[in-house]
């Protein structure tokens, strides 16, 4: 029932102690550290809080950002980063509602636009002319990337609504390699595939398909080079879709019970799902290798990275390796670099929430400084997982491949990964991890971040007692007063 807007009128200050759990204050916003690698050059970017740390890992040199746009820095934590597939452009968007487009040749900020709500995901169009970014209300906006070839007049420079989900946080955006489709994943279990128009500023009204099947919020979606779509969700599954028809080709469960219940017929938000949402671990990170067939996934609170390969015809996903990180911090984000190695980052920063009240210049400056300080003192841990080139020992495969009969074959054919040394040594490590390279703190921060994600994206579960109590306190059903 839809009356959650206002607390019950009967709940006076004296009732505060008795208030049920759904009146608890909002849990703090904890933003995980993110990592992205240049698709061709030896460049890795870590976003922690409001800070972007860029490293050339061949030279071990930190690349400095220059930004002449207004505002010059992110003022709150960065929530989304992405490279264009060519590597020429990079985008960052955050809780300060700002989206910045960076030129990766010089690492100068090309353009800054402000969205109406906190930014949740960014993606470039295939031709690099457009940047799409989604916000927490479920709207996907589009803006030109402001390249020299573009006419950056006042109309083009602004943002336009591309499409919208109804009041649902969009957790991930993906652009098909041929540029025909844009996929948007939300917390309402939906994955929408829309036709990406030739003139995006006019909107993308044509929906190609809905990919429905996840039994919890989605956390990531990406297109494979062949045009298939892979999504990851809070239900601990990877799903393979044929995006033209929205047809579910395969469900690969990485967490929870191996066998799926025969019919996941109803997404009951009341009780049925609580089992899967609490016992199943969400997939918090998903990355695609440059070879286009390997994927790496990280599970909520799990100190391991799961490598998944696409094999066979018709294509199927199989688990190739579960690499245990031996008690190290669970990853909050993963990225493949140009050489096929996997970078993992663990860490998070707690948001200082000031709302929209800040208006003065001094207050904004103070906010920027506080955000920078929070980022500088955040615990971050970066590690590299590299291919074990020779001698695939059985010991390294800490868990046997799970999945179909083809799994064994796929695993033996695929590269096996192991924890490796960070190129560039401790200097590079210092650039990416900052001063607080405390593994224990990073692990705790990563855990808090996934907890915060669950709070943010998961549906609230009410107990039967709470529901009855709520109904009793509804302000539209007060019993007639003064009559017996």
């Amino acid at each position: 029932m839809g009356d959650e807007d206002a607390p019950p009128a009967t709940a006076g200050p004296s009732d505060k102690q008795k208030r049920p759990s759904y009146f608890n204050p909002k849990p703090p916003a904890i933003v995980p550290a993110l990592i992205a690698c240049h698709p061709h050059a030896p460049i890795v970017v870590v976003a922690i809080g409001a800070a972007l740390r860029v490293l050339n890992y061949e030279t071990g040199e930190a690349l400095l950002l220059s930004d002449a746009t207004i505002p010059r820095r992110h003022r709150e934590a960065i929530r989304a980063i992405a490279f264009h597939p060519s590597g020429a452009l990079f985008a960052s968007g955050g809780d300060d509602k700002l989206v910045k487009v960076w030129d990766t040749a010089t690492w100068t900020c090309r353009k800054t636009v402000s969205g109406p709500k906190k930014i949740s995901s960014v993606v470039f169009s295939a031709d690099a002319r457009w940047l799409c970014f989604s916000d927490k209300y479920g709207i996907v906006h589009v803006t030109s990337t402001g390249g020299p070839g573009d006419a950056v007049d006042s109309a083009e420079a602004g943002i336009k609504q591309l499409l919208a989900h109804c009041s649902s946080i969009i957790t991930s955006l993906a652009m098909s390699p041929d540029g025909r489709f844009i996929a948007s994943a939300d917390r309402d279990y939906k994955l929408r595939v829309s036709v990406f128009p030739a003139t995006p500023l006019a909107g993308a009204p044509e929906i190609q398909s809905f990919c429905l099947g996840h039994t919890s919020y989605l956390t990531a979606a990406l297109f494979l080079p062949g045009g298939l779509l892979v999504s990851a969700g809070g239900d601990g599954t990877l799903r393979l879709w044929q995006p033209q028809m929205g047809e579910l080709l395969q469900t690969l469960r990485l967490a929870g019970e191996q066998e799926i219940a025969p019919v996941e017929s109803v997404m009951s938000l009341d009780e049925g799902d609580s089992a899967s949402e609490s016992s199943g671990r969400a997939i918090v990170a998903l990355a695609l290798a440059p070879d286009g067939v390997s994927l790496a996934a990280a599970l909520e609170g799990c100190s391991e990275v799961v490598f998944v390969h696409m094999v066979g015809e018709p294509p199927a996903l199989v688990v190739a390796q579960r690499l245990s990180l031996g008690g190290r911090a669970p990853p909050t984000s993963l990225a493949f670099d140009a050489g096929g190695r996997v970078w993992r980052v663990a860490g998070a920063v707690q948001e200082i929430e000031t709302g929209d009240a800040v208006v003065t210049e001094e207050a904004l400056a103070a906010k920027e400084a506080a955000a920078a300080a929070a980022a500088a003192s955040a615990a971050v841990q970066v590690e590299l997982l590299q291919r074990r080139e020779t001698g695939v020992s059985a010991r390294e495969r800490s868990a046997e491949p799970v999945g179909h009969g083809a799994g064994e074959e796929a695993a033996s054919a695929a590269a096996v990964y192991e924890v490796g040394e960070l190129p560039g040594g401790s200097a590079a490590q210092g650039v990416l991890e900052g001063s607080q390279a405390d593994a224990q703190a990073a692990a705790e921060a990563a855990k808090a971040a996934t907890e915060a994600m669950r709070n943010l994206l998961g549906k609230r579960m009410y107990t039967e007692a709470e529901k009855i109590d709520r109904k009793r306190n509804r302000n539209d059903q007060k019993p007639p007063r003064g009559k017996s």
Partner: protein
Amino acid sequence: MGGGKRKGRSPEAGGSTEGKLPQKKFYRARAHSNPLNDSHFPVPLSPTYVPWSAHFPAFFPSTPVPAVPLPASCSTPTSSPAPTAASSSGVPVEPPAVRFADVGCGFGGLLVKLAPLYPDTLMLGMELRDKVSEYVRERIGALRVAHPGQYGNVSVMRSNAMKYLPNLFVKGQLTKMFFLFPDPHFKEKNHRRRIITHALLAEYAYCLAPGGRLYTITDVAELGEWMRTTLEQHPLFQPLTPEELAADPVVALLDTSSEEGQKVERNQGQTHRAIFKRVAYSD
């Protein structure tokens, strides 16, 4: 709205018994419901999982023998693409599918009027308020008992059309969608709760077959203007021509079929209609 007039509180106590029309006084509900809230009622995971045979038992014979009384094609007047769902078993005949959706059906006045007019077309009412949807369910059940062989083609579901249309209908399944006297949401802050918005029209266009029609009517001039201009600005919708309007038998029902419409008529209020059709996408 729905003040303290009620005497008995439980519909079970004073509601309908088998075959008797339910009494509305036991099903009064607050007129407004925030559609943006997280829903706490079961929602089908995808159209494949909707228990259509439970909603329309007369159209889904229990034996899967193709002794279907009516071919599915007769309920699809336009060249709508056949739904691709329900490919689970090797049933040769396409199962009948819902073609009309009444979004925010309220107490179900339009559905009850439409049911005898299109006896071979399945129609689904969607209503967010649980008591009201329960009333419509009881009402349809009673009508089916009182008029054997009729009203088997209408049903109701508690749902939120702003969020869950793709969970119920496959692409291009519907031929008509109705939005009668929707909540006006006057405050500018709440305009995003309106049922006709530019973004949501994309989802309605997804559910509608090309040529499918979208009917809106309201007694609020401001909302009527909003709905008309929003529809006009959307590239996938075009207004009906005057000839098409005149030839459409449903148009006459919009004003007076629903409870809200009858109230407006009693008060001699003005109504504002906007009727559009779904056109193909060209980029």
